[in-house]
């Protein structure tokens, strides 16, 4: 079958008139644009939750090297298992995403934008090019944007080629520069030394669309949604064992129990929050909140029904990381392979407690010694399953598979 519309709730983005956010932003000074973003308390929607206003401030203050210029990159690599909300945004609200990039460009003084689109979404490219063309014709991209003297900015689409690690911002930049997608050491951060060595803002698709909404409706409005520390609404990609998988919008701070109610997933035994690099939350903790102060996530929610084998889940995630590790550093390259071996041993029912403890220590080493977020977070799922579902893990017999 062909893909169907994933939207399951009305989205705030439906109410944002394309063009209104950009017009409101261009009426402000650069400093005030950043001030408004900071006042909204918007935090990155890509997973890490870095304050967007702070990031823009750093890039605005950074010096350009030589004659070249600053860059705005939209991270549309969306590779985290269980995440598909950026696909929906690019399909139905591309204007709002490009508009957010344009506002970012104005704020930091960038002249070029790049949208790094994952290879799997290449079918969206003609649509996105058409939206860009329309925006150029409407004077929303190009020279003197919307009559703002000297404000020049255009956006180019570049394709990924099937590498999850390229969602990591420095690997993404390596890829754009024509290299293997191997993460760089940070610092220096992209806000100082990014694409082509120039100051670069990398933001997630949803972060940028949210910026447009903030300028259309005001920072105070945005801050009024969600919790004190986690402002605003958020898109959730819900899949797995529930009646209505799809994309949902909820205010940040929603509990897992409330969310399950809305998606038809009550009775679940666990929920994976944050995809393969996130954690498996057991039913006893369904009162926890999805917010930066409790369970932070880019929005991936995978529901596991009562009959699911959690070791099988852990194995699937570990196979993913073995496949997707860039192989650059040893804790991640060798560690993920070792963990997968350990899971296979557990599966055969041939794992002593001592060996399991060694695996847990290996997880801890990977968390502190890996070079990038992939290796630092790849043990999370396994660790949470070892902690919360220990009764499913030791002493397995063939019948448990």
């Amino acid at each position, binding site marked *: 079958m062909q893909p169907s519309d994933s939207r399951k709730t009305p989205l705030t983005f439906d109410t944002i008139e394309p063009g209104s956010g950009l017009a409101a932003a261009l009426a402000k000074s650069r400093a005030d644009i950043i001030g408004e973003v900071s006042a909204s308390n918007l935090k990155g929607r890509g997973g890490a939750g870095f304050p967007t206003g702070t990031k823009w401030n750093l890039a605005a203050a950074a010096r350009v090297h030589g004659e070249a210029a600053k860059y705005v990159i939209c991270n549309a690599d969306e590779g985290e298992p269980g995440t598909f909300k950026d696909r929906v945004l690019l399909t139905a609200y591309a204007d709002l995403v490009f508009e957010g990039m344009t506002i970012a460009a104005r704020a930091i003084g960038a002249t070029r934008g790049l949208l790094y689109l994952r290879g799997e979404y290449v079918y969206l490219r003609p649509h996105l090019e058409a939206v860009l063309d329309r925006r150029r014709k409407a004077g929303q991209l190009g020279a003197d944007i919307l009559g703002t003297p000297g404000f020049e900015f255009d956006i180019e689409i570049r394709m990924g080629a099937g*590498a999850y690690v390229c969602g990591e911002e420095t690997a993404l930049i390596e890829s754009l520069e024509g290299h293997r997608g191997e993460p760089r050491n940070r610092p220096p951060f992209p806000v100082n030394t990014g694409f082509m060595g120039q100051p670069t803002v990398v933001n997630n698709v949803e972060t940028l669309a949210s910026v447009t909404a903030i300028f259309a409706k005001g920072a105070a409005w945005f801050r009024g949604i969600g919790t004190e520390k986690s402002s605003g609404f958020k898109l959730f990609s819900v899949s*797995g064992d529930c009646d209505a998988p799809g994309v949902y919008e909820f205010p940040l701070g929603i509990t897992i129990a409330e969310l399950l109610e809305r998606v038809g997933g009550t009775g679940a035994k666990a929920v994976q929050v944050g995809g393969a690099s996130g954690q498996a939350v057991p039913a006893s903790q369904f009162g926890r909140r999805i917010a930066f102060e409790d369970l932070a996530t880019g929005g991936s929610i995978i529901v596991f029904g009562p009959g699911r084998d959690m070791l099988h889940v852990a194995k699937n995630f570990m196979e993913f990381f073995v496949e997707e590790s860039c192989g650059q550093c040893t804790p991640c390259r060798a560690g993920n392979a070792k963990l997968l071996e350990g899971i296979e041993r557990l599966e055969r029912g041939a794992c002593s407690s001592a060996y399991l403890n060694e695996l847990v220590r290996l997880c801890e080493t990977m968390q502190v010694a890996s070079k990038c977020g992939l290796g630092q977070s790849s043990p999370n799922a396994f660790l949470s399953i070892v902690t919360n579902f220990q009764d499913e893990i030791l002493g397995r017999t063939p019948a448990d598979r």
Partner: protein
Amino acid sequence: MLVSQQQKLQEEIRALVARHGRTRAALMPVLQELQEKYASITDFAMQVVADELGIHPSEVYGVVSFYAFLHHEPKGRFQIRLCQTISCDLAGKARVAKQLENELGIAFGETTPDGRFSLEWASCLGMCDQGPALLVNDRVYTRVTAEQAHRIIEECRSVFGAHATQAAHA
């Protein structure tokens, strides 16, 4: 490869480089267009790209070998990539996989002897609410069942029949 074919490919790569710019940053777009047209990037093509961009061929090979969607070894005109990640797994990807193997007579990682189909695993395709999901070249199929495996392959075959000499993009 015939000399005339080599010359043609060489000219084609020069045109690509002229369009994307003679810079290292042009490497990915150039390779992606070659991949799309020829389903793999040969040693000869890598050598020409390296010459045109003024970099060592091993740099080009390093990039081709890194990305799952770029291939050095020959692949089928139709590359079927079935998502193996968790949501599609929960939705029953194993049976779809088995039936694809049955229909094509090959295992995952292999290409049919006639060079038409390759079967591969993919990581999450971003269609997790509609799994099992697979890609045939650029085209996405969702909620695939074992019974549909045959039809998807037949759809490819009919496209192939129509443009037997071109890379088909279903």
